[in-house]
């Protein structure tokens, strides 16, 4: 008995204490919310008691489920948004894969000129807010029938865009593909780069032709990366909110995320939570497929090898034509949208693109009741609401990056040091769970979870810290992955050598473990920073007027049709994100691809 107690007491190493601590915290923040959310689909909410005859608030009911799946409105509530979601996710993932994969192949395996420029530029669409392209699409292609004013395209050519082209599923699919193709570019590019040239050379020595080598060696080797890219973009697409909200809203075309939002802030929270459950179920199914087909979880970065770089394919006389095509594509995806957004912010009356319509009003104008859109709104840079929202965003981004960075280090440390134990496995799996949850569904869960006090934890609704918690949980998979890979590269002896010299755990962390892998940790923090800066889906349900963010406030301006304000804010965010990425790369040698685990 006594010796059992001594065993326990003497075995209390820092990694064990940390592991158990995080097991409890993550259990509360990851597992409990899942149950709560399912519970919400069986409960009568205040606004629903009139819709369900004879019910009282807080009672158990199956009415939401019946209505969502079986009633005559089920198609509008659920099935149509579900089908739209699947169509969009499938379509844009394929498209993103084709674009990203082709670019990756061109850059890694051919003698394409300007490789450095192309690789750097190809990542920019990903670091811009995902709905930047949606806003640009509207600015360029909107038509008078629905948008009220004509877009730049109509103004220049006189051609009125048809509705299906200007709004709805088609532009949503295209703009999401253009946002997510850098995933494919980075992950497939990484896989192609890591193929040991010897693997191909041995096939060549055995007499295999180039097409045979491509078919039998190269493609099977990058197949996990291709498949994982597809699943990654697919599952991100399930939860994305901004793009379908901006492009689907005008024609009332819903996907699961926008339907969830409409129901949850509207009068049918039960139906909204059901959409969240459906999205998470889809997310789990996607991961299960990944697991079944590829065999191992998170296999999208596992191909590694040493040895010489594989030979490159000469493009011959096609070299420059292809390079021009690639450059034209990149300009079309990056420069054109940004220019369109910029132009829109300096046109006083929308839809009229001429010099005498030029104005700085939307940037630095006074609050005016007569000039331009946005009655009584000062220009962006003088607008206290917008500037405080921007300040909130920056504060949130910094705090979340720091917290996820620290948690990533600590959890990574606990997992790596306790490798093989059930605790390490449980921690690993738990920190991976948020990855499966579409972000707007995660927001919905935390809305349910923290709306009321629970035990010792007060209601956090409307506080800054609720935003911090939800962002931390959402980016936990990336942070922990970065932490684990950093810790794996530090052999345990490096720490044990310090133990032998009498360094405390804190000294070891401060002087050895953190400095050794500085750049990896900073890469791990850069991704949450950028993500928070442009996050909309995750936070749209959780912000209140007091915690308004740069992204969420733009949605309100869009709702009122005040696009110059929306577009100006998006431009500010793009500038901030691009500058911070470049600065941190210069200072710390960080890279987005590293943070992604690519």
């Amino acid at each position, binding site marked *: 008995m006594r*010796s059992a107690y001594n065993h326990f007491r*003497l075995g209390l190493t820092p990694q064990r204490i940390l592991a158990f601590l995080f097991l409890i915290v993550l259990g509360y923040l990851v597992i409990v919310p899942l149950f709560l959310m399912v519970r919400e689909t069986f409960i009568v909410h205040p606004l629903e008691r009139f819709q369900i005859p004879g019910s009282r608030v807080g009672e158990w009911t199956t009415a939401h489920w019946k209505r969502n799946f079986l009633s005559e409105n089920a198609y509008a509530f659920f099935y149509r948004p579900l089908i739209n979601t699947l169509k969009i996710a499938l379509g844009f993932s394929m498209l993103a894969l084709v674009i990203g994969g082709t670019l990756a192949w061109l850059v890694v395996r051919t003698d394409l000129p300007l490789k450095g420029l192309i690789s750097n530029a190809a990542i920019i669409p990903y670091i811009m807010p995902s709905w930047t392209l949606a806003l640009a699409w509207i600015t360029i292609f909107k038509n008078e029938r629905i948008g009220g004013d004509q877009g730049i395209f109509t103004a220049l050519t006189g051609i009125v865009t048809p509705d299906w082209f200007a709004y709805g599923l088609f532009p949503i699919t295209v703009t999401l593909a253009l946002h997510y193709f850098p995933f494919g570019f980075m992950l497939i590019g990484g896989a192609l780069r890591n193929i040991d040239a010897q693997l191909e050379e041995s096939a060549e020595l055995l007499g295999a032709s180039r097409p045979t080598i491509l078919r039998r060696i190269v493609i099977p080797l990058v197949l996990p990366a291709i498949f994982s890219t597809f699943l990654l973009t697919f599952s991100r697409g399930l939860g994305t909110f901004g793009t379908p909200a901006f492009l689907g809203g005008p024609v009332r075309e819903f996907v699961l995320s926008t339907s969830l939002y409409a129901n949850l802030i509207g009068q049918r929270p039960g139906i909204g939570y059901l959409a969240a459950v459906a999205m998470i179920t889809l997310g789990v199914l996607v991961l299960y497929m990944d697991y079944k087909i590829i065999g191992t979880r998170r296999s999208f970065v596992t191909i590694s090898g040493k040895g010489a770089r594989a030979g490159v394919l000469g493009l011959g006389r096609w070299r420059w034509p292809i390079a021009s095509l690639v450059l034209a594509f990149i300009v079309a995806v990056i420069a054109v949208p940004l220019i369109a957004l910029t132009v829109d912010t300096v046109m006083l009356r929308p839809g009229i693109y001429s010099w005498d319509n030029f104005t700085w009003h939307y940037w630095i104008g006074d609050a005016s009741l007569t000039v331009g859109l946005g009655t009584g709104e000062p220009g962006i840079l003088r607008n206290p609401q917008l500037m405080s929202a921007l300040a909130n965003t920056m504060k949130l981004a910094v705090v979340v990056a720091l917290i996820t960075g620290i948690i990533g280090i600590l959890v990574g440390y606990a997992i790596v040091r306790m490798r093989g134990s059930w605790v390490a496995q449980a921690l690993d799996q738990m920190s991976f769970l948020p990855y499966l949850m579409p972000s707007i569904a995660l927001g919905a869960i935390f809305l349910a979870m923290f709306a009321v006090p629970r035990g010792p934890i007060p209601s956090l609704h409307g506080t800054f810290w609720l935003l911090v918690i939800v962002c931390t949980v959402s980016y936990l998979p990336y942070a922990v992955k970065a932490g684990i890979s950093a810790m794996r590269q530090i052999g345990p002896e490096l720490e044990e050598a310090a133990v032998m010299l009498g360094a405390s755990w804190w000294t070891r962390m401060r*002087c050895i473990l953190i400095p050794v892998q500085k750049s990896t940790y900073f890469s791990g923090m850069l991704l949450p920073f950028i993500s928070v800066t442009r996050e909309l889906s995750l936070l749209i349900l959780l912000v209140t007027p007091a915690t308004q963010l740069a992204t969420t406030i733009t949605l309100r301006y869009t709702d009122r049709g005040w696009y110059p304000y929306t577009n100006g804010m998006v431009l500010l965010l793009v500038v901030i994100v691009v500058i911070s990425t470049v600065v941190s790369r210069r200072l710390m040698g960080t890279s987005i691809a590293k943070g992604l685990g690519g």
Partner: protein
Amino acid sequence: MPAIVLDRVSRIYGKEVRAVSDLTLEIPDGSFTTLLGPSGCGKTTTLRMIAGLDMPTMGTIRIGDKLAFSIEEGQNLAPAKRGLGLVFQSYALWPHLTVAQNISFGLEVQKVGKAEAAQRLDQVATALQIDGLLGRYTSELSGGQQQRVAIARVLVMQPSVLLLDEPLSNLDATLRMDMRAELKRLHFETGATIIYVTHDQLEALTMSTHIALMQGGKLQQFAPPLDVYSHPANKFAADFLGNPRINLLEGKIENGLIRCDGLDVALPSDIAAAANSAVTLGLRAEEIRLHNEPKSGFAPARVTAVLPTGSDWYYHVQMNGQTLTVRQSGGPQLQLGDEVHVEATPDPIKLFAADGQALAMAPGPVLP
């Protein structure tokens, strides 16, 4: 500083895996003791338990007059309080620090005064001939230099016991020879107790004052190297030490003779072996002579390989379907295919019972 004592120490992983099993060992003060054995024998686990980096499942460890570990007493002394220095197999030098910073880290942690720290750094750097490298990063050093820095980082703390975990395994052959001599000099100059882990029996034989031979988590023999070589406690010890490997011949006790398929050796009177019992005779390569003429007790054989090394000739001879390795320093040179007659000249005789334990009386302490 008295000895390091391990008393019935076991380390069990999970429920089944016994990395170290019931190990009792007293390492004399000032000795150069080698923990020797094949990989997975528990030698590194033993070292780590002495260092305090791994916790025994049961047993007691004393280092000098300090109780380092005891479950019953609830005692697990922190590694730094045990007065030991450990040099890791991988050296474990911190890549983000310079050589000087690596060596001074422990002094800083222990809050040694600046002047004294500088003086100790200087002293140890001079002794290990790395004083010209202090400003470099460890990635800019050769393997041998890294090794010296790793040792300096430990020596600067002036430990009374130095633990070395396979420190030479990452060096090339020439450097390894040099470092062996250097480690022996270090042992002599510091007077510290050295516990040295290796799987290389030649290193163990050339460097140690004591060898603790381990296999399967159990101690096989603890004795000075030449005693282990000449009086192996069991068949495993006989087989593991010595290069080339010992020749083991199955035989039988008959009429005061050890008879191995025609090869006979007289059974010494101080060995108690029952008549007709099955035994194994161990013959080192230098304990076999080859003759051209037959004689009673000799066994016929054929030369199957001739391997000259310059100073010696090694022969493989085929005798009754078994290949024996023979070393000859001089004598007539033999050719491949020559018919020879084998004489066994064991000194001392190494005889093992059916259970593998030695039948001869060894002078050193023999543990089960």
